């Protein structure tokens, strides 16, 4: 385990960052084919220090800094996997996967299919994303909807430390490629109990992180915490609000969405990305498609406007805010 010293004991609560670190550490111990690559992941341990300590522990053969070239990080990871290694690549910020898009969906996502099963791409791509930290455009861009249009790739987006660890262990062991989206803003700000040792958390299984009967708020990654805060506030007023954490958007837990609609009849979905074509559209379209009769009101979307990510000074106006969510929820409850 990544500890300051041998005598230091691991606390029961870990931050998301520490949980991810623990998963990487465990899996590199367990499977020596696992290697970590990316910009600044070695000596520095990554911009956010997620990979700190790995190079010292596992050596520069298994943890290495790559040149500044995202397409080659993704493309070479595919090649490494075809050569029986298990690469866990970091793209410094999700926005810079755009530099590698042609190596993601069209290559990583299709190599198994194209080869009719002769090859597969056991590759994990980790990347932080999400707003609220005053990082400039590209860095916080929430590209999950674009990634969801890449069949063959799974898109995983934990919101809690225990899930971050369990989902990352699943991702690395998954024989298929996984994009693992890390909520930058929550890296250090959210801590919670994380089981020690080895466990995996399945994909495609959303979690009802709060029960409720009047309205369901659906989110993923940092959005879940926005939902929880709103639910808390509304509970004070007596409303019973459920919160559903998708945990992975591909595969999508359609049944959980249907159940939510059946249970509460009202759903709001929160996304950080611009409204048009965001993944909230898929959530809304799916729910109305599969649970139309259960809906008491249209599925409502809370999203950024259809404008580019603004400079930090304007970020708070741009991102879905607690206030916007609360207003929508109150309207919805009165529908």
């Amino acid at each position, binding site marked *: 385990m990544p500890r300051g010293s041998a005598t230091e004991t691991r606390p029961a609560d870990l931050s998301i960052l520490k949980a991810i670190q623990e998963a990487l550490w465990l899996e590199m111990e367990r499977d020596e084919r696992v290697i970590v690559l990316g910009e600044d992941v070695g000596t520095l341990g990554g911009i956010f220090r997620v990979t700190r300590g790995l190079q010292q522990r596992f050596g520069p053969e298994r943890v290495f800094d790559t040149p500044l070239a995202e*397409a080659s990080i993704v493309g070479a990871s*595919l*090649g490494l996997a*075809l*050569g*029986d*290694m298990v690469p866990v690549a970091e793209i410094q910020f999700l926005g810079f996967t755009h530099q590698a898009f042609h190596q993601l969906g069209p290559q990583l996502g299709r190599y198994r299919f194209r080869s009719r099963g*002769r090859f597969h791409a056991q590759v994990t791509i980790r990347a932080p994303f999400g707003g609220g930290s005053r990082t400039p455009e590209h860095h916080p861009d929430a590209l999950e909807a674009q990634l969801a249009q890449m069949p063959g790739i799974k898109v995983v987006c934990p919101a809690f430390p225990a899930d971050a660890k369990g989902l990352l262990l699943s991702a690395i062991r998954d024989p*298929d490629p996984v994009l693992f989206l890390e909520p930058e803003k929550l890296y250090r700000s959210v801590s919670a109990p994380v089981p020690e040792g080895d466990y995996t958390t399945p994909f495609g299984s959303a979690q009802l992180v709060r029960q409720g009967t009047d309205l369901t708020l659906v989110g993923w990654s940092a959005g879940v915490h926005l939902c929880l805060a709103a639910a808390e506030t509304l509970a004070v007023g007596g409303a019973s609000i459920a919160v559903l954490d998708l945990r992975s958007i591909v595969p999508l837990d359609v049944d959980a969405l249907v159940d939510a609609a059946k249970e509460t009849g009202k759903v709001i979905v929160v996304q950080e990305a611009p409204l048009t074509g965001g993944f909230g559209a898929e959530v809304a379209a799916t729910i109305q498609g599969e649970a139309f009769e259960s809906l008491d009101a249209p599925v409502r979307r809370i999203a950024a406007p259809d404008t580019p990510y603004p400079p930090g000074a304007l970020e708070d106006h741009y991102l879905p805010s607690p206030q916007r969510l609360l207003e929508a929820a109150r309207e919805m409850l009165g529908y």
Partner: protein
Amino acid sequence: MKPDQIIEALRLMLLSRALDEFCIKLQRRNRLGVYAPVHGQEAAVVGSAMALDPADDWMIPASREQPAMLRHGLPLENLLATYTGKVDHGRIPSDVKLLLRQQAIAAQLPHAVGLAWALKLRGLAAVALVYFGDGAASEGDFHEAANLAGVQNVPLIFFLINNRWAISTPVSKQTAAEDLSVRAAGYGFEGLRVDGDDLFAVYEATREAVARARAGGGPTLIEACTYRVGFHNTSDNPREYRDEAEVAAAEANDPIERVRRYATAAGIWSGEEEARISLEISTELNATYRKVASLPRPGPNAIFEHVYEEQPTRVRRQRDTLLNQLPEPDDAG
């Protein structure tokens, strides 16, 4: 090259030329999809392939290296199966160290780097060789891959087939560089140019690069200068954009004829031998095609296979719905 290697090479080159003709004919009769001929580039393709050991080394094709793929162990049957849409029969056998042909120009280059890197990390004495064209050399993927290969010092040969054309774009519009092999210097490894129509020169250059890579000496960029005598592919008509005189000159410098002449002078080849082998080849092509043609066409379920190891629920449901709705296929495409 030893005499038996020369014979092997000549046979592969003849097979390649025959395969081109065969497939083009089939395509014209709508029996197969788009076909991109090797015509004119046989020495570059075969000479490089023969420097590899199929038992250990990996080959990463671009898209028109048919004889190299065959030499490396892909059965002719699988090649023809892919061309004719019998996708599952076209699967690369699990003991053949060959990656897939690539539709997206240059995208195979970083894969090749990763694969070669894995060979190195695993301590194997194997190398990889990746093919790409003069057009592909303009893509960002080439640059990023070459630079990464250099800095990781991976056992990889970048085999650039400069056939002077990328569809209708001549190399003079592709780049202002006179010599593409000089790019290697910018990545810290060796680059060289060979006459891509000289089988022996190609073979020797590749063999040296392979030996260096195997010994831990890292990557090499080899630019094989040749000419795309054929059309870009069966949808293309080069008369629309290039001078027939240029083509005629290249045809006069036919790489097969050069080897044929050498082998004949060396007393290891004759007209009878060639007639015999040509017959063998055409028999093999016809028999294999007949076999492939009789294979069942893939059904709609093939769309849902090999997407993920385990089918996610939503995909499974899409499959169930679709298979219930679909009529019998009426065309193999």
